[in-house]
């Protein structure tokens, strides 16, 4: 184990800002992509269903 304590872990030997900045942005990138994709998929299904109902009428 490399870390004596949690604060030690977050501090990362003084490089905490750089390391967590990197990991944070990566996580944010992935999350944003997943959320946007989920929304787009739901929107596609909604609009297709709307269109289908409209055609059935």
């Amino acid at each position, binding site marked *: 184990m490399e870390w004596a304590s949690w604060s030690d872990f977050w501090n990362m*030997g003084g*490089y905490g800002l*750089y*390391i967590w900045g*990197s990991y944070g*942005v990566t996580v944010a*990138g*992935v999350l944003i992509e997943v959320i946007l994709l989920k929304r787009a998929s739901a929107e596609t299904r909604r609009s297709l269903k709307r269109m289908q109902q409209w055609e059935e009428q």
Partner: protein
Amino acid sequence: MNLYTYASPANFYRLAGKLIPWFAWGAGILTVWGLYISFFMAPTDFQQGEAYRIIFIHVPAAWMSMFIYMVMAFWGAIGLAFNTRLSFMMARALAPTGAMFTFVALWTGALWGKPMWGAWWVWDARLTSELILLFLYIGIIALWAAIDDIRRGDRAGSLLTLIGAINVPIIYFSVKWWNTLHQGSTINLMKAPSMAKIMLLGMLVLAIAAWFYTIAVALVRVRRVILERERQTEWVKAILEKEN
């Protein structure tokens, strides 16, 4: 059932639906394992201190940005040669994820560069060609967005991907060469001797996780595109009705 059957959108839609959870869970588990390696198993680097831990995402992201581009070029070429709709859909589905990884590679590269070289940005071959790769991704996505006609968009985007694929290596080597002329010594991100085995393992695990993630996301996107493009067909109507 042979491979060709899966090339039909209806079958591929079902197959993709079954595969997505596997890849998504795989990506999650591998990420946890990879992060454990990178933060708790890999020792502190005696030269770079803890800052080197950024490479556990920087390097896989840089790999992904290039690999995804090559895979896009591959699908584009297949689509242009054999006129298969599905391959164009794959190419399109990969682009946003590729651009995202390229951005992550640039961002993490800058955050690593600051403590290591004292500068957020250096015009070294890898960062510069990564930047130009991002421009190419943006160009391709913009071209797709600008063309309303699906068939034209598919083909035009793939042609652009192909000419970019020929150009990326040339750009890389020209920047590298330009760089050696302008700065006495090149800065090498990965000094081979100090690379411990455990570091390599961490990068590999995270790279595979990134692959699984990319595949899962691309499949979701392809499924969405299939639904849109095949909305006139009976099987799509049946699927939508079942969900109602």
